């Protein structure tokens, strides 16, 4: 296991180098003069020269690449052209919000999705199975913005049960420590014994998580169902039954652990997509996350910001892949021991 981890971690370096290089050349080779694009048509020569020097654009490409790599190692993405603040600072303020949302969306999607998948597999061709699978079909084909609006209409406007529009009750005096509000709220709960922050943070997470998690939920339910159906026909399931093992244990332990292998892959993939694809949800729920920010950065051709955002998101992708691989080997001894 340790050897596997070392091997896998050492593979991380070339992958990340590839990502960083790709982003560099995508921007360096994109048509037009970035300085001109950034400053607009009416910028004078002086201004252009200054920006070029600042971005290192007056150097030869090789030197530029070397400088760029050096900066990347320090996670230094330069300053945002739009706001003038360091890109890394903006990202570290916003990304936790996105990660938090994606994480809760994924927990919602994975638990409910796996439960639905298992139930419909073990009750194949009953009304439970049909309802779940029709529901799953709706889930994948439902436009996220529509679902988000419906959720807001019902639970927020109509029933006034759940808040929307930020990450925490705005009336609370609340200074974030980690930018993960749930973690902050837990720290506050321990420190001050006041649960109102945690309750508010979680309540604010519910609607956007449901909106964001519905598509992955439907996909996970379908993958779990088909994987489970296949596993349940395997000989070792018959063996377990012939040994008198309780049916619930046969299903939830003997079969599910095998059936989870493809599900883990899907969860990882979907989680990566949620991190980069939460723009719509973030916009509708006014969630101050990276998706919305990146969207505006691209629109404004804020190259340093785009660069930083893309690299951070791809790095997360790579890391999620690593976690998936590790989980995979934990579940599947065949891979672990090779």
């Amino acid at each position, binding site marked *: 296991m340790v050897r596997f981890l070392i091997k896998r971690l050492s593979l991380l370096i070339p992958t990340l180098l590839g990502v960083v290089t790709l982003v560099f050349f995508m921007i360096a080779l994109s048509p037009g003069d970035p300085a001109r694009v950034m400053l607009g048509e009416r910028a004078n020569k002086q201004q252009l020269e200054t920006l070029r020097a600042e971005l290192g654009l007056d150097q030869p490409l090789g030197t530029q690449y070397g400088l760029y790599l050096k900066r990347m190692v320090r996670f230094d993405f330069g300053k945002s052209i739009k706001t003038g603040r360091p890109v890394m600072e903006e990202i570290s303020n916003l990304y936790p919000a996105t990660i938090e949302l994606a994480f809760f969306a994924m927990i919602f999607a994975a638990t409910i999705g796996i439960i639905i998948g298992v139930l419909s597999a073990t009750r194949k061709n009953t009304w439970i199975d049909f309802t779940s699978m029709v529901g799953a079909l709706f889930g994948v084909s439902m436009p996220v913005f529509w679902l988000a609006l419906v959720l807001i209409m019902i639970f927020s406007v109509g029933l006034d049960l759940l808040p929307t529009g930020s990450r925490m009750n705005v009336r609370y005096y609340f200074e974030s420590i980690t930018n993960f509000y749930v973690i902050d709220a837990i720290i506050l709960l321990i420190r001050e014994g006041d649960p109102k922050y945690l309750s508010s943070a979680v309540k604010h997470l519910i609607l956007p998580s449901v909106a964001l998690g519905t598509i992955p939920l439907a996909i996970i339910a379908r993958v779990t169902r088909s994987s489970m159906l296949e596993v349940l026909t*395997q*000989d*070792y399931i*018959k*063996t*377990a*039954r*012939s*040994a*008198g*093992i*309780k049916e619930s244990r046969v299903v939830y332990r*003997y079969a599910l*652990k*095998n059936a989870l292998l493809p599900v883990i892959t899907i969860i990882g993939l979907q989680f990566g997509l949620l991190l980069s694809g939460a723009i719509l949800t973030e916009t509708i729920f006014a969630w101050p996350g990276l998706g919305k920010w990146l969207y505006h950065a691209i629109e404004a051709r804020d190259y340093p910001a785009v660069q930083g955002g893309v690299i951070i998101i791809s790095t997360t992708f790579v890391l999620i892949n690593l976690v998936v691989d590790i989980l995979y080997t934990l*579940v*599947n*001894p*065949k891979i672990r*021991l090779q």
Partner: protein
Amino acid sequence: MTEELKNNNEILLSIRGLEVNFHTYRGIIQAVRSVSFDIKKGETLALVGESGCGKSVTAHAINQLIPMPPGKIDKGEIFFEGKDLLKLSEKEIRAYRGDKISMIFQEPMTSLNPVFKIGKQIADVFMTHHKISKKEAWDRAVRLLELVKIPSPASRANSYPHQLSGGMRQRAMIAMALASPEPGLMIADEPTTALDVTIQAQILRLLAELKAEIEMSVLLITHDMGVVAETADRVVVMYAGRKVEEAEVHDLFEHPGHPYTLGLLNSLPSNEKYKGQTRLEAITGQVPDLLTIGLWCPFENRCKYAKDICRKEFPEKTEVEPGHSIWCHQVGKLD
């Protein structure tokens, strides 16, 4: 019937008039038709016949592991220690599975769960049937692995199935089937078919040794007459869902009475005995389709002794010697 069985301490399992049908969209597959036989305590009964004749279905009816639907046990009784298993609830029958009635399967490669250690899989069976601690269950699992002669059992218990050879896995399967204090009946569904000949011999020897050590009966399913000769006490021959002959193993090999049995024995490669006789070589013709099969003798279309009567009705039992019965209209007229 029940009284008689209760009083007969010799008999462990008694199947009476078993009928199993599969209700598929194509129609009703009559997989097992009025099959009856007994298994005595400590005996090895071989169930033989070619592929698809209903051996596995008969065996799975005992612990009710037939997939239902499409399968359905439409008739019959299966007495185990005097109790009709077919009248038990799912929960009650589950208490028998892996405890008094255990099973080993044909495919050692796929019959063990790939994601659990074999020690864990065996320990789980113990813990299902007994209130013992994890540690205790694991220790017993290791002792069982030792019993089935797996080298360095304590470390082998920590292996995953794919780390063991086919023969070792089949030993582990046997250990799992023994995970009860005194196994009553072990059903071995072609336990050696997937193994090569030397390993096959080792596994059969192991089963024989275990039987001498533990008081258990074995229902051995096979289509290999060589295996039958080596291990069985008594033989039931099945053909297309019917029982066609039953005899002590010695009687069967000495005086096979049913044309189908004769055919089976003649197709044994090493069989010198029937050289002089009319050699049937391989049995020609097709097994009848179980969907449309009639009530007459199912072997009729492949039998060179068949007469008109064979196409009319299924024969009555003829007991040629005590304990040797044949279901054939042409008994004694085979030469």
